[in-house]
């Protein structure tokens, strides 16, 4: 690597090109340590997710093995004890089908209510609102997204629930001929519909902010081209923004779905948990895995707790799938504009 000193040889012979200097990037020890530590920290999310899966599966294994597939297809939750007080695992039944279906129903109702409102709100904020209204609304919506779920739970129980029950009665009165609005018994209180309404207020901020982000990434040249061709604002939105942002909105809706599925306290307060599969959403009997875990946990014995762990595992996997799909869709949509 040594280069000859200039002037020493120049008088004598031919001009020799100096040997190419070797370029190395050899990180120092401090950098090696730093990169190692940062990588470890980065991998922690993988480790934590993995540990959640492993431990819940480990604790729930006994119940899952004795129930088999019946754990997610059965709808009975019955703890049978022998006369000493120990739980008889063979005779007990643990099935969460009713709760799983109930979870999906409540979350779907929430998404059906929230998506149109959120999309309209996002459209207004992106393309219609004056600047100061926009800033105020964005701050308010961010704040609402940070509200804890117990707040929604109490507000939903005391303030929103009477209204929601009234809406349910209206729906039954005018759309009662639809199969899922039918009522076999006249109990409107604490129905999946009410829970869905409360959940929808929780996920409106999420869907709105995701949609707003996607809409604001719409390529500006296309927007201006549409205006230059003489379109009105609505024509521009229909021709440019909606085709561009459609899949992003779907992703946002799925993020909301994931959040609604995992919600515990807000649903617990406004939903009447009943162990049966109930498709008639206006009747006050529904299911929700997370609330069921909270409800049963207090008086659960060791075996039932293991079953609850298994239910938690099912919920974890369900939300993980929905969220991952949503994130893939949102990430794909974002960034392809501008």
């Amino acid at each position, binding site marked *: 690597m040594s280069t000859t000193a200039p002037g020493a040889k120049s008088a004598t012979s031919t001009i020799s090109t100096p040997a190419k200097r070797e370029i190395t990037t050899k990180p120092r020890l401090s950098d090696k340590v730093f990169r190692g530590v940062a990588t470890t920290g*980065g991998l922690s*999310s993988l480790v*934590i997710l993995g540990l959640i899966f492993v431990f*819940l599966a480990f604790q729930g294994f006994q119940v899952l093995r004795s129930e088999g597939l019946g754990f997610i297809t059965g709808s009975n939750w019955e703890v049978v004890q022998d006369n000493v007080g120990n739980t008889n695992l063979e005779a007990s039944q643990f099935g969460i089908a009713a709760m799983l279906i109930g979870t999906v129903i409540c979350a779907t109702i929430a998404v059906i209510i929230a998506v149109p409102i*959120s999309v309209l709100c996002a459209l207004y904020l992106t393309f219609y609102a004056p600047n100061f209204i926009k800033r105020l*609304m964005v701050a308010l919506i961010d704040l609402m997204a940070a509200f804890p779920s117990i707040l929604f739970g109490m*507000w939903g129980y005391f303030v929103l629930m009477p209204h929601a029950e009234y809406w349910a009665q209206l729906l039954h009165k005018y759309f009662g001929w639809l199969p899922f609005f039918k009522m076999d018994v006249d109990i409107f209180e604490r129905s999946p519909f009410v829970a869905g309404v409360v959940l929808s207020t929780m996920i409106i901020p999420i869907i709105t902010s995701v949609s707003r982000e996607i809409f604001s990434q719409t390529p500006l040249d296309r927007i201006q081209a549409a205006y230059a061709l003489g379109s009105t604002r609505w024509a521009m939105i229909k021709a440019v923004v909606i085709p561009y942002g459609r899949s992003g909105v779907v992703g946002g809706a799925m993020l909301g779905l994931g959040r609604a599925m995992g919600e515990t306290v807000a649903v617990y307060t406004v939903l009447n948990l009943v162990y049966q599969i109930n498709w008639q959403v206006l009747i006050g009997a529904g299911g929700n895995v997370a609330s069921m875990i909270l409800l049963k946990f207090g008086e659960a014995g060791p075996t039932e707790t293991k079953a609850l762990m298994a239910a938690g595992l099912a919920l*974890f996997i369900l939300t993980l799938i929905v969220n991952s799909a949503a994130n893939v869709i949102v990430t794909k949509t974002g960034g392809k504009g501008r």
Partner: protein
Amino acid sequence: MINSKVAVKPGKPWAATPRERALDLGAILLAAVGSFALVALSELKGKLAYAGVFFLLIIVINFIHNYLSRGIATAKDSIASTFAVAGVLITLLPITSIMFSIFERGKTGFKLNLFTSDMKLNGPNDPLNQGGLLHALTGSGIMVGIALIISLPIGILTAIYLTEIKGFFTRPIRFLVQAMSGVPSIVAGLFILSAIVFPITKTPSGLMGGLALSILMIPTIARTSEEVLLLIPPDLREAGIALGGTQWRTISQIVVPAAKSGLMTAIILGVARVAGETAPLVLVSGGGDALNLNPTSGPMGSFPFYIWKSFTFGTTESIARAWAGIFILLVLIFILFIAARLLGGDRKKK
């Protein structure tokens, strides 16, 4: 030179003229009058009927007016804008209702003794001037503090890995962090329960609550910090390297200090995210009624647990307690949020 003498007054040809404003106002008034008349005359009743009829009338009036004056395209546009405004109003409805009802109902139970005493000697049904939520305040503070101590290094290291090191795992880790932010809070509680409480400690404690909260906090801190670090201009990093600094020194002495206010925002948002988490604390913290400053032993009360317990108790007094608790919680979140906004605004100015 000639032009400079002519004072051109900049106008806004696109802004609404007084006549257009008057017409808009007229349409709203007409629709309001019409909705009252229709509701009075027909069998419809209730606030919902007023709102619905008013909305329909606004659409019809705007449609006819725009159709007659400018044609079908503008008329359709007017429908779309009416819907968009309706969307915003419906979104505003729950926010205002939540804030209003919490203020309205929280103020009866809001007494100064809330901050000075705990519930050791009082049940939730006792008169409101006895007992308080000192234990909840300290308990929540300790648990959120524990969660912060754990999540802050992990979250910021994750963000640094994603933005600065960009190794082989960048894409999967970004994906996993997003997936982790969707983990239901009750699952976090069950995890701590199954991994630590059952096999090792056997009893719930404040430390376990902090651990459960940290699982929910890590993704928030990691994602916000990542966004903040991405905003730091690459020039700063290149300057640091060019001055002969190693990557470690560049990041620790240039990039992270430059992002300081943004990282504070990340911390605040993380705290706001977990401050009201109820479900995991119900499972793992034990939720005591007495003041307990030791996170490693004994049940520890917390804000959400106090609200939860008072709410599920179900008497008038206890529910007033719950509203007062939620009022204080909301004020705390409000303060955190404004702090985050101020710090965030600071960042943009630089």
